């Protein structure tokens, strides 16, 4: 068996293991084992590659592998679950950086190595896609990470003709790409296109506010996959094509799911026109309306005597890092005979599924986490709906006010519950910047303060009750 046959066989085995791994994700009980298979597949691919006869020196490979492992270990083991969105964003940056650099180096070598013959038309198409999506995602995802982590303002930055500029630049980049397919030797155009994509990544993310992060992260998930698949075409490597296609499919599906959950069209998402919900369109002012603050004692009393409580977590739970307190409160309510369910909106938090991970972290069984369609009919039977750091996903304006920027977005019908308790830091508006009518309703009670503090007080109060 020649050395290259070993490599091809290794890639074949890893492809099978990757597909099995992704398939296992369809159920939480099989997922962990399946991903261990996928990790094995990765090891097989990496070890197999070392047999490739093209490789003449291992020094730099080993240095790169060790450096990557040293960077990767803390990113895998030390990052808290609450920081998952920014963690995923930075890994999109790393993944697409690898793809973009490989593409740039391949192109450079095709014109600078002695005896190099340049790039063919089809190969240029692959390299172009790889570098275009790769470079765009490197900066775009880094910006997303910055906004999530807070070293870049999470507010959307909006200036005149923003969408026109962005779409214009995108069109120019695509035209350059098409030109390169016809004339692959135009090296200046190649590097200009790369720079344009890097810049576009930054500009594309500037207008996007916190609430749109789930869509953005899903989109970059898809772009990273597309870049990897294109790398596979450029290098004629089947395992890269397969994994790229899997990753692209996952990002695509999540983007669609997220945009549906926000009632946005997919084209709206694709062209980055999101985040531009007009701030002047606030339909109803809250003037003259008063909220009903509630004391910790009264809130604890309501919860203590409730038979059914539905907890609605939002990004505020992640920010306050209070999932452990949520668990403790759940236990206390149950010890008094109440039933607790969790209502998870698809875009609660900053990335798809984030709330589920935080609740799983504190050992809440997934059978008690309900999706929007399943839980909405339950609210009328609930004695208390406890909203922890969620805002836009429970805003009735999505149903009642055609003028509202979030009109049409499916929401959790917490206002159907007999009583609503909202844990909130202050009366600041949600990330969509809209007034929330829910907070002014007669059966809504506001418990102001940091969610962690409030929950702590509720817990000690309930222990005494």
């Amino acid at each position, binding site marked *: 068996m020649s050395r290259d046959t070993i490599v091809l066989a290794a890639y074949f085995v890893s492809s099978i293991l990757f597909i099995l791994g992704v398939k296992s994700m369809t*159920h939480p009980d099989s997922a962990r084992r399946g991903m261990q298979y996928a990790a094995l597949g990765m090891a097989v691919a990496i070890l197999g590659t070392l047999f490739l006869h093209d490789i003449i020196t291992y020094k*730099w490979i080993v240095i790169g592998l060790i450096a990557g492992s040293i960077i990767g270990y803390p990113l895998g083991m030390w990052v808290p679950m609450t920081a998952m969105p920014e963690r995923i964003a930075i890994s999109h940056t790393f993944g697409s950086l*690898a793809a973009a650099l490989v593409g740039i180096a391949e192109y450079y*070598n095709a014109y600078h190595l002695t005896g190099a013959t340049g790039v063919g038309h089809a190969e240029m198409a692959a390299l172009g896609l790889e570098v275009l999506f790769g470079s765009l995602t490197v900066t775009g995802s880094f910006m997303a990470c910055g906004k999530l982590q807070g070293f870049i303002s999470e507010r959307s930055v909006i200036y005149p003709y923003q969408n026109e500029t962005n779409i214009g630049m995108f069109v120019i980049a695509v035209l350059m790409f098409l030109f390169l397919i016809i004339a692959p030797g135009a090296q200046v155009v190649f590097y200009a296109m790369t720079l344009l994509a890097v810049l576009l990544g930054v500009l594309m993310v500037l207008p996007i506010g916190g609430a749109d992060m789930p869509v953005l992260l899903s989109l970059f998930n898809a772009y990273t996959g597309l870049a990897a698949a294109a790398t596979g*075409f450029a290098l004629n490597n089947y395992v890269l094509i397969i994994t790229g296609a899997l990753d*692209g499919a996952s990002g695509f599906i999540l983007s669609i799911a997220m945009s549906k959950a926000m009632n946005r069209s997919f084209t709206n998402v694709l062209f980055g026109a999101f985040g531009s919900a007009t701030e002047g369109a606030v339909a109803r002012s809250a003037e003259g309306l008063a909220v009903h603050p509630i004391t910790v004692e009264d809130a604890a009393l309501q919860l203590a005597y409730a038979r059914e409580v539905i907890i609605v977590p939002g990004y505020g739970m992640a920010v306050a890092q209070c999932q452990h307190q949520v668990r403790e409160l759940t236990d206390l309510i149950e010890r008094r005979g109440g039933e607790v369910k969790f209502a998870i909106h698809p875009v609660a938090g900053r990335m798809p599924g984030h709330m*589920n991970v935080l609740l799983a972290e504190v050992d809440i069984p*997934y059978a008690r986490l309900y999706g929007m369609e399943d839980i909405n009919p339950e609210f009328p039977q609930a004695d208390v709906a406890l909203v922890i750091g969620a805002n836009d996903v429970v805003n009735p304006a999505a149903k009642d006010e055609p003028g509202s920027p979030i009109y049409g977005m499916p929401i959790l019908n917490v206002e159907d519950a007999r009583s609503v308790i909202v844990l909130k830091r202050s009366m600041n508006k949600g990330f969509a910047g809209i007034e929330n009518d829910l907070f002014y309703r007669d059966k809504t009670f506001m418990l102001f303060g940091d969610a962690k503090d409030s929950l702590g007080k509720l817990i000690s109060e309930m222990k005494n009750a």
Partner: protein
Amino acid sequence: MNTVMWFAELYIALLAGFVGYQMIARVPPLLHTPLMAATNAIDAITVVGAMVLAGRGHGWLATVLGTIAVASAMSNVVGGFLITDRMLAMFRGGSGNGAAKAASNGRGMH
């Protein structure tokens, strides 16, 4: 590069995309965060392309870019699989109070 090979690759991409779509559309929203972490880890297979670049000895620029690419992709391999495993280890179905009741109602998210 011959045309037959290109079409073979297009077929592979098409089929893999179709299989991926069918499988991933059935992943419950419960697991969407681990799914994103998992596809990211698997996607770091670009490390093999980067390894070839770093080890082929085709000029210093390709070696430097290749080594950086190996390191970035490898950080996703190690970090990605570790964090996915950490997350998936946390998901529990049946154990814990009240779980059996909720599950038997058949309204779970899976």
